[in-house]
């Protein structure tokens, strides 16, 4: 199905030309500036791009040069990318919030001769590290505020470059160069924010970008007339695909907010029809809603709770096209009029036709909330090397615990260690100047390792991600041991702050649980349960019972997947202190340090596996002021109900 | 002396006497304005209300009888007794004081610190309210106020002055009631000035007028002062109401004397007691003279309706703060 280089437009500039021809007078870009949404039609955008392209030529840009682009999302910067492609250069978007040395590394690594910088802040960062960068010739800045007094020998304003371009009249050269672009020439280079080691420059070809864009656009039936809000970092592959790839393919309109802090209002004004956000954004929005509703009057509150309940019951069903009784439909219509509609409206999501979230696991209650509002929120699984799409959820098959079925044109395979491999037209060309990492990631047949462990549900064919492949271990029984997977499930309960699951090389799994003081504390107050300390509360029998229920429920859901049924928590205890970075039990980014904890609380671990019913322990803690102290406690150890795997299998 | 000249004198005398009454009403305004910065448009209606109440009390009418009858289908009108004038006046005074308190408590306590214009509009509302209440309490039919005050022209004066002119001059025609009114008004004015100058409350009142904060700091209760001045205004209203009422019957038009007093104030300055008096006299004489010399012969008469205003208006344009008012200095 992949068209050969001849059929159809084979580069972004080609797509641009097509859009100008097809819907030249439709809006292509908007930006909130000076109080209104400044708009550019496709024709106008193309003119701007050409002007810049010509200007870049006058500055002496050669075919194959890398042109770095940094700044917040603005149409002009998107145009800069396309302009670069027009003249056969490779656009390299960089993270606007990156530190100077990170930028220095990237600029040096790709040997950029030109940088298009958003504003003074970006310019300053670059000038700071300029000495080191031998190849860097010229900085082109967009917003001149505060730059008046800077030395302009190697610096020009975006507008001036365009002016020069318009004057130069070398458009023929520009066209010649962009016509020469082939389907397999580089389209863009994106630096992966390297969690380990240096960032790598992922090279994506026109084929990668255009085919994934087309496939994904068809998958969700995206079309001209759709609206997206471009607010995620331009250097992130997702933004490149949404705001350039798909936008160019379908010809929908890209809207840029006025600034980061007006994003919510701008979102509300635009009311996008196609919306992407990482889980934390949805989570934040939900919390805001709840906080604001706290101050609502009794009637409003009741109305809200009542109709949200209706929404939770009916909304998702309606979205998935499941049969819904007329009575429920009426109820939902009412809810829509009184609560859901206005709510979606104030959140700016009332027009969303397709919404995606990805990056990390999203809490079911968050996910359900938006589904209840009737927002078609789906999950996808992807990465830069795949030009985003590996799997995504088709309409009607949306669940919070899977990441969906393979995207069109994507093949999946699961290695015996559970790691997920894929092969697709979107598979990246190479890591720039980094052959061996390329080789280690992508084999000769084009299979790419995701580094994540997961499995495919037989009945639905949905992929479910368990954990980072390196964190997934084996139990004594040989069954798969995926602590994070279970811990996440546990942590979705508001009462549970942290959980640490043990079981690598053991016969069964056990867990440490940290209660969430605020949540449990509130609960205690409501049921007037007196407690003098975190420790006392943590060991309160009723608390333990609640936690035990949670664990039981988690076990049930874990048992549902044969591959993971082994990971059910057989025994657990509730820790007498909060896991704390100051005590080295967590990283500063609040990731549990499994090894450290296992070592520090070895007595407790032994107790869990030693079959004791309670254990006395002393732990050293560090207080805020740095003093050290000991806390002594006797902890109950509970057996959690588990579901027998054979039973589960049948 | 020629008759015309003498008639001119007569006009002036009548003007002066009318002026005293204007001054009296104007005083009511000045009192409240000095102490609270409120320009009390309701002053006139207060006079009407006072007069109505006085009549009602004397005749032993049942307050709100119309309303009661309408609601309960009863047919009550009078208690069937009559109250002697003096007692009635006292009772009316009490009612006016109660009213003063109510106004302060329910309305202006909530408007402290508002712009004068807002307060002014509030008093217009008050005027409507009070007029309605008055009519509800005592009915809106014209009533005669029989206090046994002398009526008609004073023969004595006429005969005594007849000699001044030739045959075609019959002496000054001066209404007895006007004379009485003048005397009473003069007494009241004197009394008020004395009160303001020599009593503790009076001094407190002036202190408040000068500077609220300072007054507060020396422990004067603004609320008390405000109720006090409203009560005094009530007293003034009562007297004015009696005079006017006795002269031309107790009816709605009585409330229009407020409108008469306005130009007096613009002339005399809103904050000056002497200003009010002088202003009153000027207006009184001025409008009578104008009517006598120009109005009646050339303009078809009834110029009193507006002359005072025109005079004041023209005057204001040249001296916005009035004759005796404090200079208005604009700070940047």
């Amino acid at each position: 199905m992949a068209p050969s280089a001849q059929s159809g437009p084979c580069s972004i500039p080609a797509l641009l030309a097509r859009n100008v021809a097809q819907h030249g007078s439709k809006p292509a870009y908007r930006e909130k500036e000076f109080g209104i949404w400044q708009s550019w039609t496709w024709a106008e955008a193309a003119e701007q791009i050409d002007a810049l392209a010509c200007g870049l030529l006058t500055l002496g840009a050669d075919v194959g040069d890398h042109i770095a682009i940094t700044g917040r999302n603005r149409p002009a910067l998107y145009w800069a990318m396309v302009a670069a492609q027009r003249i056969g250069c490779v656009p390299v978007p960089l993270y606007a919030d990156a530190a100077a040395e990170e930028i220095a590394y990237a600029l040096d690594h790709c040997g950029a001769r030109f940088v298009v910088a958003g504003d003074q802040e970006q310019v300053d960062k670059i000038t700071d590290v300029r000495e080191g960068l031998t190849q860097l010739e010229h900085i082109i800045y967009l917003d001149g505020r505060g730059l008046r007094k800077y030395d302009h020998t190697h610096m020009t304003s975006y507008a001036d470059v365009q002016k020069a371009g318009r004057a130069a009249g070398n458009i023929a050269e520009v066209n010649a160069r962009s016509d020469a672009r082939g389907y397999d020439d580089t389209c863009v280079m994106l630096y992966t924010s390297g969690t380990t080691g240096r960032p790598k420059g992922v090279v994506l070809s026109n084929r990668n970008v255009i085919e994934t864009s087309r496939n994904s656009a068809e998958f969700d039936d995206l079309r001209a007339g759709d609206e997206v809000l471009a607010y995620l970092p331009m250097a992130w592959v997702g933004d490149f695909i949404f705001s350039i790839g798909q936008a160019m393919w379908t010809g929908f309109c890209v809207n840029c907010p006025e600034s980061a802090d007006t994003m919510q209002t701008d979102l509300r004004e635009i009311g996008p029809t196609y919306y992407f956000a990482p889980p934390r954004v949805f989570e934040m929005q939900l919390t805001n809603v709840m906080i604001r509703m706290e101050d609502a009057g009794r009637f409003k509150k009741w109305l809200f709770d009542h109709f949200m309940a209706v929404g939770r019951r009916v909304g998702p069903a309606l979205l998935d096209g499941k049969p819904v009784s007329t009575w429920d439909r009426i109820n939902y219509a009412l809810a829509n009029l009184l609560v859901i509609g206005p709510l979606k409206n104030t959140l700016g999501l009332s027009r969303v036709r397709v919404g995606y979230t990805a990056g990390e696991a999203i809490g079911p209650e968050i996910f359900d909330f938006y589904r209840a509002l009737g927002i078609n929120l789906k999950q996808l699984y992807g990465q830069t090397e795949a030009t985003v799409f590996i799997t995504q959820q088709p309409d009607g098959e949306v669940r919070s615990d899977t990441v969906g079925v393979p995207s069109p044109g994507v093949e999946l395979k699961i290695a015996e260690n559970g790691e997920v491999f894929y092969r697709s037209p979107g598979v990246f060309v190479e890591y720039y100047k980094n052959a061996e990492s390329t080789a280690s990631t992508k084999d000769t047949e084009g299979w790419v390792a995701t580094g994540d462990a997961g499995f495919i549900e037989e009945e639905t064919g949905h992929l479910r991600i368990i954990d980072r492949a390196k964190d997934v271990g084996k139990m004594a029984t040989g069954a798969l041991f995926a602590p994070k997977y279970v811990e996440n499930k546990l942590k979705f309960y508001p009462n549970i702050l942290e959980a640490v699951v043990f079981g690598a090389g053991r016969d069964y799994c056990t867990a440490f649980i940290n209660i969430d003081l605020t949540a449990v504390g509130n609960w205690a107050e409501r049921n007037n349960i007196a407690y003098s300390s975190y420790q006392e509360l943590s060991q309160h029998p009723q608390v333990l019972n609640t936690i035990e229920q949670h664990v039981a429920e988690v076990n049930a859901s874990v048992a549902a997947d044969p591959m993971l049924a082994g990971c059910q928590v057989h025994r657990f205890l509730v820790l007498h202190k909060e896991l704390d970075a100051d005590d080295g039990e967590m990283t500063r980014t609040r990731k549990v340090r499994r090894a450290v904890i296992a070592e520090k609380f070895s007595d407790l671990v032994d107790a869990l596996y030693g079959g004791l019913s309670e254990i006395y322990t002393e732990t050293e803690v560090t207080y805020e002021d740095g003093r050290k102290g000991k806390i002594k406690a006797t902890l109950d150890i509970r057996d959690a109900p588990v579901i027998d795997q054979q039973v589960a299998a049948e | 002396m020629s008759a015309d000249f003498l008639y001119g004198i007569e006009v002036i005398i009548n003007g002066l006497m009318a002026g005293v009454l204007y001054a009296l009403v104007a005083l009511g305004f000045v009192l409240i304005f000095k102490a609270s910065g409120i320009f009390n448009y309701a002053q006139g209606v207060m006079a009407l209300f006072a007069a109505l109440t006085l009549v009602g009390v004397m005749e032993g009418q049942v307050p709100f009888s119309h309303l009661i009858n309408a609601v309960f289908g009863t047919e009550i009108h009078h208690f069937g007794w009559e109250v002697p004038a003096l007692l009635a006046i006292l009772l009316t005074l009490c009612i006016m004081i109660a009213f003063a308190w109510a106004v302060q408590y329910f309305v202006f306590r909530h408007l402290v610190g508002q712009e004068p214009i807002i307060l002014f509009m509030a008093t217009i509302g008050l005027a409507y309210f009070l007029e309605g209440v008055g009519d509800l309490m005592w009915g809106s039919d014209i009533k005669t106020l029989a206090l046994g005050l002398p009526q008609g022209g004073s023969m004595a004066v006429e005969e005594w002055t007849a000699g001044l002119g030739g045959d075609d001059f019959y002496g000054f025609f001066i209404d007895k009631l006007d004379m009485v009114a003048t005397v009473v008004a003069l007494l009241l004015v004197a009394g008020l000035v004395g009160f303001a100058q020599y009593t503790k409350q009076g001094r407190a009142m002036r202190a408040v007028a000068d500077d609220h904060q300072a007054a507060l700091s020396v422990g004067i209760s603004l609320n008390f002062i405000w109720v006090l001045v409203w009560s005094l205004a009530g007293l003034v209203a009562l007297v004015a109401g009696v005079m006017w009422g006795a002269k031309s019957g107790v009816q709605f038009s009585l409330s229009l004397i407020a409108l008469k007093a306005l130009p007096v104030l613009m002339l005399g300055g809103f904050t000056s007691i002497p200003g009010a008096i002088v202003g009153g006299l000027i207006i009184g004489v001025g409008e009578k003279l104008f009517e006598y010399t120009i109005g009646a012969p050339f303009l078809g008469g009834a110029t009193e309706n507006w002359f005072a205003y025109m005079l004041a208006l023209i005057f204001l344009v040249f001296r916005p703060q009035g004759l005796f008012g404090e200079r208005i200095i604009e700070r940047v």
Partner: protein
Amino acid sequence: MKDTVVPYTTPDGRTIGDVLMDMRGITLRFGGVEAIKNISFDIREGEIRAIIGPNGAGKSSMLNVISGFYNPQDGEVWFRGAKRPPMKPFQVARQGIARTFQNIALFEGMTVLDNVMTGRLTHMKTGMFAQALWKGRAEREETENREVVERIIDFLEIQAIRKTPVGRLPYGLKKRVELARALAAEPKLLLLDEPMAGMNVEEKEDMSRFILDVNDEFGTTIALIEHDMGVVMDISDRVVVMDYGRKIGDGTPDEVRGNQEVIDAYLGVAHD
């Protein structure tokens, strides 16, 4: 012009041009009191000129003379090379002199946007009938001026409060809005009456930055009153020092710092 002056360039690359406003022997009396005693000084194009002095030195009176609230009994006011006849404030404004007030004088009943738009009044010429019809000339003019205003709003970073009624704003923001309104007039000369009065340290820093930026980006000539010495000395090119209505010092911040009389009269005060 009395004396010809050579344009020069400041260290940070701004050009200070000819004399823009020349005050010659200004004397101002209130009744018997002499608020200003025979003061002369000039303000040159593109500079930041400060008038400082202890309270009651006559600074504000001087500003009010410049902006036409008071007409001096003696002395001449020369503006852009011409002697200025006695004028009303609004005529002065139309000559291209805008100002802010020490105690903010915004139009509380209007939104920030409308307040700043009022700053454009001197630039808006459409007649009443055209306005009554709105469509066409009036609307076009409105839009053109709105564009100018929006750039100023952007420049002073008050986009977020564009449509809020000024009554609801905190003090610091109000000051900024008032500055915006003055800037909207695109004045030849901008008068700032204690722009930092009652501000905390970082508000003061912001305001100083804005003042410098205004002078830099728009090349606006600025005359400001301030009795916080520190700030003034940092941002102004030349300083006039007043005390009891007399001029006791005039020159660059450094010269003024050196001036013994100033130190006695003023810094002494400032120290305690």
